[in-house]
């Protein structure tokens, strides 16, 4: 009902005057009637300009929100299912599957909330993609997946899905600090011919419309997200790439040190929120 109201508002001229999220902000995200997800929380201490953090879910229309509330309706879960069968399939010279070392995907529930994180042995911050490829190459003796390949996105979606409802838990002190600082610097840098930083859109203007887009806080807790526009799940670095492209800028590469640092920093801006990937976004 609220949805139809919104729709007619979009068609009419009254668009700007209407509080687009009035219904959204009051709603609560409970998935499958059992997984409660925190979508709004007091911001972490390191956040200087935002007092309340909000998941991208709170900025979407009721219709899009509803798709995420039931796994049968969430198209992202189809990719999770694909990853499930890969999880259990032996591949590579070593004859191992993910399952032979890790058991059930649910046994990995503690992982996604902490990512990206400092990898002591490698001496750098690692994302889910890097851990996955390390297992594939060194433990399974299988080929690495490209950062943005379908199987990679599917597998990160599986890892995320088992952690839904668990609080984001990234470490920003200790050895990861330097990477975090770099990510912060990138977040506030004004890129491209339009000279726009992440903060210009997602800190100074969240909740405002920019053309037809209702700006969110640009949180990463829903990644990989299923995007209706793409009819597929998209990786976080691909989203970063699109946002910098939209500044008439030259984005960094997927998997680049810059985007890994940005991933850590953006994750830390979501401290207080829960993991909800694969989320549904437009």
């Amino acid at each position, binding site marked *: 009902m609220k949805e139809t109201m919104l729709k007619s508002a979009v068609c009419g001229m009254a668009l700007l005057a209407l509080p687009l999220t009035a219904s959204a902000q009051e709603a609560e995200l409970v998935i499958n009637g059992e997984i409660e997800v925190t979508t709004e929380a007091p911001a972490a201490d390191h956040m200087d300009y935002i007092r309340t953090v909000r998941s991208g879910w709170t900025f979407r229309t009721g219709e899009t929100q509803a798709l995420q509330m039931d796994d049968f309706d969430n198209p992202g879960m189809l990719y999770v299912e694909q990853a499930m069968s890969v999880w259990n399939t032996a591949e590579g010279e070593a004859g191992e599957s993910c399952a032979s070392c890790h058991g059930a995907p649910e046994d990995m529930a503690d992982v996604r909330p902490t990512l990206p994180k400092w990898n002591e042995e490698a001496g750098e911050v690692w994302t889910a993609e890097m851990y996955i490829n390390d297992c594939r190459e060194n433990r399974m003796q299988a080929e690495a997946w490209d950062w943005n390949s379908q199987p990679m996105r599917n597998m990160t979606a599986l890892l995320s899905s088992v952690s839904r409802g668990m609080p984001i838990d990234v470490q920003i002190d200790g050895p990861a600090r330097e990477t975090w600082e770099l990510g912060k610097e990138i977040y506030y840098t004004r890129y491209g*011919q339009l000279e726009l930083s992440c903060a210009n859109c997602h800190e100074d203007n969240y909740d405002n*419309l920019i053309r037809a887009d209702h700006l969110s806080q640009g949180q990463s807790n829903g990644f990989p997200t299923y995007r209706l526009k793409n009819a597929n799940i998209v990786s976080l670095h691909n989203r970063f790439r699109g946002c910098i492209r939209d500044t008439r800028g030259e984005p960094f590469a997927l998997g680049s040190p810059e985007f890994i640092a940005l991933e850590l920093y953006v994750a830390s801006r979501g401290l207080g929120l829960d993991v909800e990937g694969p989320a549904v976004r437009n």
Partner: protein
Amino acid sequence: MKRTVAIAAGLAIGAGAAFAEEVAPGDVVFGEYGSVEQSLTGVPGDPVAGEALMVNRGKGNCISCHEVTALMEHPFHGEVGPILDGAADRWTEADLRGMIVNAKMTFPGTIMPAFYKVDGFIRPGDAFTSRPAPADLPPLLTAQEIEDVVAYLMTLSDG
């Protein structure tokens, strides 16, 4: 081509519309509060062309951030910047020209892009292709397009 433009700009200062020569992006003279007195071309702006630029995504795309009541037949006005209704009552033509050329001279640190600027960017791209910008990156709007947008803004009067 940059050289000739620069020379022409030098000549045109103070000469008014007599010299129909362009002021290059690097040669625009700003007043203390960011206004630009001199026309960039000496050719009067066309408000009808300006209106088209205001709503064109690949050009001014002004309504992505601003609401303008007179442009309501075009869908999706943003709310990042102030409503532009009555802009001509609040600002002079020189103020408005300065704001479109480089709004950061009027509003330091503003999110509003500079439409007549070609350098000083960080990782500029070739439009929305994700590729690096060419060495001779054109400004977002040409000198005459700036004049057209200013002419359109001058029609936004409540009085």
